[in-house]
C-alpha cells in the first residue's frame, strides 16, 4: 500500500481544486485520479499516484523506469493495476 505508481494524465475534469480529477493511463489500465495535491498538473504530464491521489509530477523517463520496476517486482496487482505485457516502447 505504500507504493506510488506512475501514470500519464490523458484529460482533466473539474475546476474545484479539491475535487479536480485526471483520467490517468497506467500502461493500458485507466483510472480516475484526484489532482488536489498537484494543482500544476496538465494533460500529458506524468504523475506518481498513491492511493488514488497524484503526489508529484515526474518526467517521462522516470515514469517509464519506475513503471518497469514495479512490474518487475510484481507490485501492481496489489494496487489494483494488472499490467499488460511489457512492450519495447514502454509506457
Amino acid at each position, binding site marked *: 500500500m*505504500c507504493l506510488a505508481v506512475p501514470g500519464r494524465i490523458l484529460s482533466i475534469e473539474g475546476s474545484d*481544486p479539491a475535487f479536480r480529477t485526471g483520467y490517468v493511463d497506467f500502461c493500458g489500465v485507466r483510472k480516475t485520479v484526484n489532482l488536489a495535491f498537484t*494543482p500544476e498538473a496538465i494533460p500529458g504530464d506524468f504523475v506518481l499516484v*498513491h492511493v488514488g491521489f497524484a503526489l508529484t509530477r515526474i518526467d517521462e523517463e522516470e515514469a517509464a523506469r519506475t513503471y518497469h520496476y514495479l512490474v518487475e517486482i510484481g507490485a501492481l496487482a496489489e494496487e489494483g493495476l494488472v499490467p499488460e505485457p511489457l512492450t519495447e516502447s514502454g509506457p
Partner: protein
Amino acid sequence: MKFVDEYRDPKIALAIAERIAQKVTRSWVLMEVCGGQTHTLMRYGLDELLPPEVELVHGPGCPVCVTPLEMVDRAIRIASTPGVIFMSYGDMLRVPGSHTDLFQARASGADVRIAYSPLDALKIARMNPERKVVFFGVGFETTAPANAMAVWQAKREGLLNFSMIVSHVLVPPAMRLILSSPSNRVQGFIGPGHVCTVMGFGQYDELVREFHIPIVVGGFEPIDLLDAIFMLVSQLEEGRAEVENQYSRSVSYAGNLPAQAILREVFEVSNRKWRGIGAIAESGLRLRDEYAAFDAERIFGTDDVTAEEPRECISALVLQGLRKPHDCPAFGSRCTPVNPLGAPMVSTEGACAAYYQYRRHA
C-alpha cells in the same frame, strides 16, 4: 526491453558496492525506515553486495505492521456491526487481530471490501445512503493526505454515513524513539522517499542536529539504495551529519504544500500505540474535533477494546533494528505469511515477510 535500466544494472550496482568498500574503514549500522526499501534490499540481495563492515537493520516503516492489535480488533468489531460496509487496503484485511482477521470476519458474514483509495469508500457511501461505510485509514505521511482529503470531502458533501478509523503514524517520532533508546545501534538512516515527497526532507533537520546522525533520503530501486548507502558511509567516515537527498527525482526540501495543508486542516498530532513497540508520544495523527462526526471509533464506541501482543513474537525488537527476523524462534515455522504471529510477517513490506520470501533457505 528498451529501458535497460541504470537503476538496476548489476554492473553499476557492483561498482557502487566497490566504492562503498573503498570508503569504509570501520563498521557502521544503517537503518532503512521504509518497508518498500526493505523489500528492495532483500529482493535484490543488496546487503550481500556490501562490505562486512556495513550492516543494515530494518526499521518500523510498514504501516500495516505497526498498526496495534487493538486497532485491528476494533476494526473487526465495527466491520461485524450489522449494516456496516467496511473498507480498507488489501494487506490490512489480512492482518491478524487477537482472534481473527477482517477477511475471516467477511467469511462470517461481515461486508468487508478492498479499497485502493479512500475515495473508493466515499463512492460506496454515496451509493449506499442507508448503510454506514467505514474506512480503515492506516499509513504514514504518504497516505495521510489522501485520507484527510476523503474526510474533508465527506464533510463538505454532508456525507454522514461515511466515517474513518484513523490510525496514522509519523516517521520522525519513531526515528527519535530508536535513537533515544539506550540499546540503539543505528548510526545512519536511509530516509523514506515517498514520505518525504509529501513532507519534504526539511523535516529531518532537527533529528540530525539533535542526534548528530546522517540521514539520506533514498528512492526505491536497487541503485537508489546503494547510492544512499554510499552517501551515508561517506558522511560517517568524514564525520559529517547532514540531511542529504538522493531521491531528488521526487523529493524536495519543502515537500508537497497542498498535501500538508489538508493534513493540518483535518488531523492533529496525537499519541499513538505502535504494534510491538508500545505508545510513542506525539507519533500519530487523529481527527480534529471539527471532524468528530467522521470518527468511526467515536461513532461505534470502541474505546473498551484493548489487546495484548502475543508474547512469542519479537516484532518489537525487529522493528527497532535490535534483532533480525531469522533470530526469532518462530520464524518460518510457527510464523509464516500464511499463518503470521505478528504483523511484520503479514504485509509484503514487513521485514519478516521479506526475509521469508527471499531468505528462506539462508
